[in-house]
């Protein structure tokens, strides 16, 4: 059974990654951000990455399975964030990618999720011509910080509303995807400041285009995937969710 899952994971990975179009997706490409914003976004992102390293050191002592979980979700975020999904949306045919940070934020915590996203984005910028080194801080802000924290809080709010585990995961995935693209829109919208444009108008316009081009559909897909992953973890090893504080008692059935 475990061998089947491993083989399936590899085939699944190869099928979706082996595409030249993969280079084009949401990341802000090299050269787009001027130096002042490069420095600003790095300054914003680095403290979150540092706290993420501290959280990993602390949690791996409390939970033996935490490091393998970080490895799995790190690789999953890497795959999700460079895997172009064809979408037929309001504005025609396009490809875009999910983010995966909603899922990692729920299972690893938001700070560790930022760290995982930062590593994934760095590898993509170095070797896959995807994103950029000067725009790394900006991409960490949108996908790592906004994506992780929005997904984490969406999950917590959904739990407070007593939604089932699937719907809590669905909302985490969907909201994190939307906030990631909102972050990218904000970063691009800020470029109009000092050029006579309106930041709010530009941000709203770019976000609207993202929604109509692909993300309106893709955020729902990401929500469904995260929902199913949480249900899978609960059915296979509820103890993990218990250790992570996502469920209170693994002897009582949770509504999935």
């Amino acid at each position, binding site marked *: 059974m475990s061998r089947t899952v*491993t083989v399936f994971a590899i085939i699944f990975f190869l099928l979706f990654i082996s595409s030249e179009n993969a280079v084009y997706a949401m990341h802000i490409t090299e050269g787009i951000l001027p130096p002042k914003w490069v420095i600003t976004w790095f300054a914003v992102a680095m403290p979150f990455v540092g706290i993420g390293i501290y959280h990993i050191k602390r949690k791996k002592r409390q939970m033996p399975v935490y490091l393998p979980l970080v490895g799995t979700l790190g690789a999953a975020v890497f795959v999700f964030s460079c895997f172009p999904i064809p979408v037929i949306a309001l*504005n025609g045919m396009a*490809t875009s990618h999910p983010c995966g940070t909603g899922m990692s934020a729920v299972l690893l915590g938001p700070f560790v999720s930022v760290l995982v996203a930062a590593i994934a984005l760095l590898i993509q910028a170095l070797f896959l011509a995807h994103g950029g080194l000067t725009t790394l801080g900006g991409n960490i802000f949108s996908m790592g910080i906004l994506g992780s924290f929005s997904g984490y809080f969406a999950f917590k709010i959904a739990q407070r509303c007593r939604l089932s585990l699937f719907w809590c995961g669905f909302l985490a995935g969907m909201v994190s995807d939307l906030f990631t693209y909102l972050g990218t829109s904000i970063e691009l919208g800020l470029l109009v400041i000092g050029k006579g444009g309106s930041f709010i108008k530009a941000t709203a316009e770019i976000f609207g285009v993202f929604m109509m081009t692909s993300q309106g559909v893709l955020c729902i897909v990401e929500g469904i995937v995260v929902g199913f992953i949480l249900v899978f973890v609960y059915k296979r090893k509820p103890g993990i969710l218990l250790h992570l504080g996502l469920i209170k008692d693994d002897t009582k059935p949770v509504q999935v």
Partner: protein
Amino acid sequence: MEKKNIPVITQTNNEEGAWTGIDVSVVGKYAEKYGHPPRDPYINTDQGDLLLFVFTAAGVIGGFVIGFNVRKIFYEKE
């Protein structure tokens, strides 16, 4: 005849062709509009089949990492 200002919203994808990534059709287009066009990455693997190679290699490595850890977490007995 006066040229109409067509909003970018109607131009995406149609100019670039079907299945264009939104990095090109949205991010790149707006960046150019605001005077900051994208440029080539410092390590440019987007040359011929080199990109295909690095994506496939990344896929294989990532797939092994996921498979190994999933097995360790969910299928091995403690």
